[in-house]
């Protein structure tokens, strides 16, 4: 399916996601992309076999987490946090940067620009 995603303001993100949740959509995934000096996060929802996408453009700081609406978003948000260095606000369970990468791995390896440094020895909780 060729993607036609709708842009959403960061402020409205949670209410939009809530609408999908109440409409009986299931959460499929989030995808993070590098733009020039920003990031684009695509949220994908599905009802039956149909997909719907929304996206936000962010500079990587204080992105509201949707893990309190869809608890399964937790794994993918932790992954994005680690691989791209994006800060999520209100992450239900924060792995502190030890979800995918080890102590000596490169920091935010998939991002073109560096946002935050991983605090060493983060707790796995």
């Amino acid at each position, binding site marked *: 399916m060729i993607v036609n995603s709708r842009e959403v303001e960061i402020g409205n993100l949670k209410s939009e996601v809530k609408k999908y949740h109440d409409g009986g959509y299931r959460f499929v995934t989030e995808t993070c992309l590098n733009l020039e000096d920003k990031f684009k996060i695509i949220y994908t929802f599905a009802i039956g076999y149909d997909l719907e996408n929304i996206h936000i453009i962010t500079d990587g700081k204080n992105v509201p987490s949707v893990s309190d609406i869809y608890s399964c978003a937790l794994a993918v948000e932790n992954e994005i946090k680690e691989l791209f260095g994006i800060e999520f606000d209100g992450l239900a369970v924060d792995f502190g940067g030890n979800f995918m*990468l*080890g*102590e*000596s*791995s*490169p920091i935010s*390896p998939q991002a073109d620009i560096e946002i935050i440094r991983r605090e060493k020895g983060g707790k796995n909780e």
Partner: protein
Amino acid sequence: MGLKEFVKKSFSKSPWVVHYDCGSCNGCDIEVLACMTPIYDMERFGMVNVGNPKHADILIVTGTVNEKNKDVLKNVYDMMPDPKVVVAAGICACSGGIFRDCYNVLGGIDKVIPVDVYVPGCPAKPEAMIDGLYKAAQILKEKYSRKEVIVSAKSLG
């Protein structure tokens, strides 16, 4: 010294194998497992797959080493009693294979622990794996003959 000789001989005749998946794509893992199951049946040669590295003589490693599991691999290797033989199964374990340019990959387990046998193939065929294990058993035998092994008759009870 009859018993000591006997123990040495039986250790090298029936080596036990521990398998550690060090970031492989599962292709080589299932071929290692296929060696244990009826069609290729490695137990014909007295090789038993054990879960505990302290019981094992041969370590089969599959997959690329990444930043997170290099310590685990080192740990498993250190836990094994001397003498020990390491088999790198598949090209990922040999050199990092197709993933050697990835950011999280060290590339080849020989950067972490010494390797005695390299088995090429992507994934290595069970026949190649059996060849590799046979070679490993030969090397183990040689190591036993070369080295004074700390096995006292007393400790056997």
